[in-house]
């Protein structure tokens, strides 16, 4: 799927995309290998926390409280951030956000930007828009750099290049950095990236970042990372532009005490991120860091999600990606099947809500509802519950003549009467008879049910139902 932007408006349905990707054995191996490693690390560091469940519960409450008073905290953030010398911009949708960022970059006098990994900029496809405006973005996060140089798309919210293995990365670097003799140890690859990026850090005057958290109490912005490249982008450029969804706010600095325990352990299996940066506006003495700081607070359908009492908890997400690593569906398909930069369970609930439902109709069904995502979510988002809620919305949009809806209504009608149910049981036995082989198995089913018999057989229905047996036996003993 390289080169094709992940856009729910143009993406194939999940089952169609998944069918192709399930055939990509190398990619599946890479994804399985990487998620196995992260999951094992996560389990280890979570296991050493005796109060993990309490922490999760506190994390959930902090996020829930924030969403309840989101307007209050956003206003407080704006006030405090402005007082510290930052400039706050509000964007109602992706287009407005892109225009604001492009305007700010142009005003900074630069034709290039260095970027810190940010899913929000991926969400609005900022890089494409920047390029369209004659601005060259350079990703500085190692994984994002791999994606950018490879003309690829992220497949995971924390580890965007998780679907690539080291050999594939080496090929990309050899080709794009013009390094025919590049070695293949992790050190060789890191060195190549470091050399490539160092020039950019020292010459590019404008930086673009996302945010992990916005702190209302102080007007501060928090970014956590593992490599330190982000910190270079935060401190070296003259102008720093941060773009964040309005859901990123937390009330108090002290709330980070909880969230910064939950996030790294869930995301990468680290006790703490190697780099935790919090910055407040600009240095009033003009000595340290950027001279100008702008922050774009983007709605992009988030207030709409907030209005829905059942879907709302989606906004509590702190983008740790644990649900992706735990999801058996994601582990089979990788991220690109989800047709959006948000993949896995969180993508399956976030994308249909951020985009109009009809662009992402099949995503709420991209789950077996096994609950592994809910089990690991550090802020206890009940993803299966939201999936089912969204399935209801999909069904509401179905027309009267939809075959599935018709079948479901019929079966529902049957279940509402014992007599009809028993008749249907008898009918089922009759109807299947021509399909049953001499050993009592069915190897092929027609229509909607054909998916079943692609790889599985079905035993013929027993001659006698339980209730028939019970009656013959004379009811209660």
């Amino acid at each position: 799927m390289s080169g094709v932007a992940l856009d729910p408006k143009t993406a194939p349905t999940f089952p169609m995309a998944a069918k192709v990707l399930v055939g990509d054995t190398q990619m599946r191996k890479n994804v399985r290998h990487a998620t196995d490693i992260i999951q094992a690390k996560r389990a280890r560091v979570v296991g050493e926390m005796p109060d993990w469940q309490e922490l999760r519960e506190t994390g959930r409450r902090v996020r829930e409280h924030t969403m309840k008073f989101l307007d209050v905290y956003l206003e407080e953030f704006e006030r405090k951030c402005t007082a510290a010398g930052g400039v706050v911009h509000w964007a109602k949708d992706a287009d407005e956000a892109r225009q604001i960022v492009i305007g700010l970059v142009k005003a900074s006098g630069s034709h290039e930007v260095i970027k810190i990994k940010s899913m929000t900029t991926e969400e609005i496809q900022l890089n494409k828009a920047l390029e369209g405006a004659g601005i060259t973005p350079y990703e500085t996060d190692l994984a994002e750099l791999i994606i950018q140089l490879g003309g690829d798309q992220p497949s995971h919210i924390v580890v965007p290049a998780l679907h690539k293995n080291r050999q594939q990365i080496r090929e990309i670097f050899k080709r794009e950095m013009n390094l025919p003799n590049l070695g293949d140890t992790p050190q060789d690859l890191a060195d190549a990236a470091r050399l490539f990026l160092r020039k950019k850090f020292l010459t590019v005057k404008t930086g673009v970042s996302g945010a992990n958290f916005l702190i209302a109490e102080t007007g501060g912005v928090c970014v956590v990372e593992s490599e330190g490249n982000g910190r270079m982008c935060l401190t070296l450029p003259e102008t720093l532009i941060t773009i964040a969804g309005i859901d990123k706010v937390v009330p108090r600095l002290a709330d980070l005490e909880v969230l910064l325990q939950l996030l790294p352990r869930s995301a990468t299996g680290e006790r703490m991120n190697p780099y935790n940066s919090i910055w407040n506006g600009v240095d009033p003495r003009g000595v340290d860091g950027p001279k100008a700081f702008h922050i774009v607070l983007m709605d992009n359908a988030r207030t709409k999600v907030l209005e829905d009492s059942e879907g709302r908890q989606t906004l509590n997400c702190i983008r740790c990606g644990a649900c992706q690593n735990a999801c058996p569906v994601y582990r089979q398909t990788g991220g690109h099947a989800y047709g959006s930069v948000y993949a896995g369970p969180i993508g399956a609930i976030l994308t249909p809500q951020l985009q109009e439902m009809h662009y992402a109709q099949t995503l709420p069904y991209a789950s077996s509802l096994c609950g592994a995502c809910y089990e690991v979510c550090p802020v206890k988002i009940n993803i299966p519950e939201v999936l089912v809620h969204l399935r209801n919305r999909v069904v509401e949009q179905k027309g009267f003549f939809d075959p599935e809806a018709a079948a479901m209504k019929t079966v529902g009608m049957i279940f509402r009467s014992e007599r009809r149910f028993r008749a249907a049981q008898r009918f089922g036995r009759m109807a299947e008879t021509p399909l049953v082989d001499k050993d009592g198995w069915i190897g092929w089913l027609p229509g909607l049910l054909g998916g079943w018999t692609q790889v599985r057989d079905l035993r013929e229905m027993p001659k006698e139902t339980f209730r028939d047996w019970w009656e013959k036996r004379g009811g209660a003993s």
Partner: protein
Amino acid sequence: MQVALFITCYNDTLFPETGKAVVRVLERLGHTVVFPAGQTCCGQMHYNTGYQAEAMPLLERFVAQFKGSEAVVVPSSSCVAMMRDHYPKMAAHIGNADLTREVEALLPNVYEFSEFLTKRLGLEDVGAFYPHRVTYHASCHGLRNLGLGDGPLKLLKAVRGIDLVELQGLEECCGFGGTFAVKNAEVSSAMLADKTRAVLNTRAEACTACDNSCLMHIQGSLHRQRTGVHTVHLAEILASEAGGAA
């Protein structure tokens, strides 16, 4: 104790042996089993596929059939999960105060079969004999929604003659997921392939679980691959006795 059996639409139609086994175990333990005849389906398939409105009357039907029961036993963790996780919310949605009260009174007495044995009756050994090599798959709803933990394994360990072998990745979803298996057939098959590989690696004669839905899915693949390995509901193992019919 008088135990009301909710057999589930699925077991009633496709797996009557499981229901018979539940009756046999409970009666052997000295309980009386009743079977409210008007029962049909818990509404899970509709609810989980997004047809909430179709599930509502099934909740009402379930409550009408089972209210006042001392205990309700269900040989399916996913149906019990459906009830525990969603019935209260659905009743509130219907907005009928009586119904809400009845659901609240009824739910604490609804048990998945293995849960009834281990938690309500406090039993591990139910006097079964099953001289076969068996592996156990923890179905997702039993594991995560009901928190069955190692309850089913304890019951199995107490079975005489059994050779219980651990399943690698026992907590991983088998890929059934109701309509998921049909709507996302390819992904479901890939998940199933992992599961059946794990089952075959145990060299067990049979794979057991607390849900016939997972088992039907696993069995379907084991049969397609002509492996000779079969599946059997936990209740059927527990119902087997030395010299018995099963």
